[in-house]
């Protein structure tokens, strides 16, 4: 086996030195009846060339060479090549969590830089070293709000990513022992409704807020791509002593969309910052917050300090919040997070920088705005057209989106995500995302296909 650095004679000699007759002596504590005396039924050992060939074949069975308009929490953006070159340095790739600060300063300083950039982007005062992803970050942020307020109820918007809402429900059910064990997780019951503009219905929010509300959890831009009115939401929530948690699934929006400064906690997915789509993970969640909530923050934090000679250095700090110290009294059970992915985001933000992030965000805004206009001219209806949006929009068509997408696939175009599964009330609706990777030519050829809807089907609903 090519990863094992020992010759047969070395193994024999080492056994001799230990005083063992055979390797099986070392496994004698495993009762005989449970010892495996045959080969595992897994594929036979393969050489590197065969492994690469296997994955090439599988890769070829996935979509390649398609124009795509998919978004919905996983965003297509260009990834500068220096990111992969740098994160594949063994010192980043193959190091452990930086508990031994003296020989982990590289990772620690990079985390400190990441935390700073996240604070700048989100308008928050503190940020942690990362969470698993945007969905679990949202659930952990809700739990954080419960701890801070001592209240139990979380009001979540119906326009929070449906899969984030499912994760939130799974986490929330664990708070009390008598909650429903199973089922009902696709239920919309309890979610805060949206108004005619696709924004949170503020009147409904006001009605639902009371002294039991721990927090209002909204996504902005929301699942429909619409930017929420965070100052107005915060004013209502704070009046009732509730916190505001803002979930951001598209971090790049912060290049051109005002940050949610009135929020108390921000739970973000940073995948857009140079992280591959990779069929849904690994991505990079992060929680940022007002400084006064520091002690309730889950996850790791890097902090600046000095050594005995007064030199600047960084350490993991405030570990008394964490599971390895506090055990069952910890703020979360999180241990391993997404450090290498956070490093990718840090490098991405450094490559684009202050000007580039804005320029990139404006390109996304421009292309999405243009595509929405072109598709609408071709007969599709853009829903929530009056509301501010970033780079996603909901289209309603006469033709069911699944059927339309089949037509588009023939031309190697992956259309918008059909929404009927989660929002049947919207009819034939689909969610479209247009990024800097979509060219004007792609938008035009897709526009033509809207026009080519089969005979008898009026595109406009």
């Amino acid at each position: 086996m090519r990863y094992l650095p020992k010759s047969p004679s070395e193994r024999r000699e080492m056994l001799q030195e230990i005083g063992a007759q055979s390797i099986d002596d070392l496994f004698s504590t495993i009762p005989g009846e449970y010892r495996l005396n045959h080969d595992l039924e897994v594929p036979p050992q393969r050489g590197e060339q065969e492994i690469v060939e296997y994955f090439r074949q599988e890769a070829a069975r996935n979509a390649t060479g398609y124009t795509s308009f998919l978004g919905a929490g996983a965003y297509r953006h260009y990834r500068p090549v220096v990111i992969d070159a740098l994160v594949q340095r063994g010192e980043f790739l193959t190091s452990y969590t930086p508990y031994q600060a003296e020989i982990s300063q590289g990772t620690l300083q990079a985390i400190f830089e990441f935390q700073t950039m996240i604070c700048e982007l989100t308008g928050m005062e503190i940020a942690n070293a990362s969470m698993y992803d945007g969905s679990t970050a949202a659930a952990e942020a809700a739990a954080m709000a419960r701890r801070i307020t001592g209240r139990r109820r979380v009001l979540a918007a119906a326009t929070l990513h449906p899969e984030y809402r499912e994760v939130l429900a799974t986490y929330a059910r664990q708070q009390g022992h008598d909650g429903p064990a199973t089922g009902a997780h696709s239920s919309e019951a309890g979610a805060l409704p949206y108004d005619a503009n696709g924004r949170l219905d503020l009147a409904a929010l006001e009605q639902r807020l009371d002294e039991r509300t721990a927090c209002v959890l909204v996504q902005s831009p929301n699942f429909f791509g619409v930017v929420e009115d965070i100052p107005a939401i915060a004013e209502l929530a704070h009046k009732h002593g509730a916190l505001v948690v803002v979930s951001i699934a598209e971090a790049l929006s912060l290049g051109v969309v005002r940050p949610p400064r009135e929020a108390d906690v921000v739970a973000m997915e940073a995948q857009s910052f140079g992280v591959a789509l990779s069929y849904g993970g690994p991505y990079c969640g992060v929680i940022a917050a007002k400084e006064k909530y520091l002690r309730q923050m889950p996850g790791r934090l890097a902090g600046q300090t000095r050594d005995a000679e007064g030199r600047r250095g960084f350490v993991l700090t405030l570990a008394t919040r964490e599971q390895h110290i506090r055990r069952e009294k910890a703020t979360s059970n999180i241990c391993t997070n997404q450090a290498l992915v956070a490093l990718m985001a840090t490098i991405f933000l450094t490559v684009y920088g202050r000007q580039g992030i804005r320029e990139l965000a404006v390109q996304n805004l421009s292309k999405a705005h243009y595509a929405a206009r072109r598709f609408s001219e071709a007969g599709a209806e853009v829903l929530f057209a009056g509301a501010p949006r970033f780079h996603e929009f909901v289209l309603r068509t006469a033709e069911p989106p699944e059927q339309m997408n089949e037509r588009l696939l023939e031309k190697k175009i992956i259309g918008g995500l059909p929404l009927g599964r989660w929002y049947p009330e919207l009819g034939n609706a689909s969610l479209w995302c247009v990024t800097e990777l979509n060219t004007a030519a792609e938008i035009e050829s897709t526009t033509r296909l809207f026009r080519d809807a089969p005979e008898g089907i009026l595109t406009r609903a």
Partner: protein
Amino acid sequence: MATEDTGEEAAIPFEGKRRKVSSHPSQNEALIFEKSSPGKRAYRLPPLDVPEADPSALLGTSARQDPGMLPELSEIEIVRHFTRLSTWNYSIDLGMYPLGSCTMKYNPRVNEFVSRLEGIAEAHPYQPESLSQGALGILHLLERCLLEITGMDAITLQPAAGAHGEFTGILLARAYHQAQGDPRHKILIPDSAHGTNPATAALCGYEVENLRSNSLGMVDLAELEHLVTGDTAALMLTNPSTIGVFESEIHKIADILHAKGALLYMDGANMNALVGKTRPGDFGVDVMHLNLHKTFSTPHGGGGPGSGPVAAKKILEPFLPTPVVVEGPRGEDGRPTLRLDYDRPRSIGRVRAFYGNFGMFVRALAYILANGPDGLRQTTEDAVLNANYIRSKLEDLYELPYKTPTLHEVVFSDRRQAQKGVRTGDIAKRLIDYGFHPYTTSFPIIVPGALMIEPTESESREELDLFIDAMRQIAREAQENPELVLTAPHSTRVSRLDEVAAARKPLLRYMPPDGAATT
């Protein structure tokens, strides 16, 4: 420290000879923000091929003028910045990383290569299933391999890390009990357990009950029998335990639990001691998690990403998170069409968006394919051989609190060195000067002053001998020159950092001297 004045020439206190390392300058590097100057750039976007939108017109009051104090540098400066930072880290690629319980093994480069193939790296989680057969095929094959390795019946790959897997596994147990109309309130956890175990049980709303270990560091069967009641949902057990000992009476443990309707949860952190030699599903485990970033070679990346699949027995299958991969009719190529099944009415729900850390599945599967059944078994045997080799070469100098035969790791205590005031953390820091990453210190808590050493299979005899030599020299330094050990490390860019000050007055982000930060 003072040397006695014997009238003869004062003896120079012993200082060991470092064989693995020589000193070498490392580059200084400021924070990225301190290197930034306005107008520099490392990107160039293609020209915008549609009319440029006016953000203020489209977004109104939601428009942002300035994205904040992000750095502005050229590409060469960025490459140097992160390369310089990288050289301040220790890594497996540099040498042995004997962190007990963490299984720091070699991370094969082919894993990285295949995870970056275009059809894999660029696969969108919502692309049609007909265009995702490769991704689903990878998920499905990995699931089948892990089921075979664990001897379990059903699996979910969705959890993003070990602790997330624990959370998922305990929710499965909870859903099972509730479905029986028998909600239970207690989880038993041995005092030798990882901190994540009690944190998870508490997160899932359970009362944590502590189970004391016996004099061999194993589960005390009498105590277990006494504590398990009709209100016990599960025992969370690490096997082999955190002192590296296989619970020989595992079947009795399972029987005691099952007789009272409780489940046996296994923390799979130490699976590197078992793969190909024995299977948890065969010895009575009902539900367990695996750490792909430990046992299956996916890189730790300085603290993640991980991946924590959960495998379970048939009785827990209805409760698995949605979606699950299922086989449909065979396609033109003779392979079954795979699809994602969301219609699981008894499921605990989702624990994460999408399907889990897919990129880690690709790497873990590449590792399994590179090994095959014989390689997996040999890997386990080498890991156990290495740990026992270290044990036999150090047990004369370091106290071995539990003499029970161990598998993949060995836990010493600092009792002898502590007589000179040298504690496990000091010895660990001194190891850095010898060119090694420290072992795990002060864990498990059942061993006061623990030195927890797990070499993994990835170390050659030569590297092990260097480690043993370093540990032996440090033992002598602790006796003859304790001050040297107490003030280690002496060879790093920074010496011991003031963690108390860091926690007392937390500084968690860079603040520019002119106060120009946006917040």
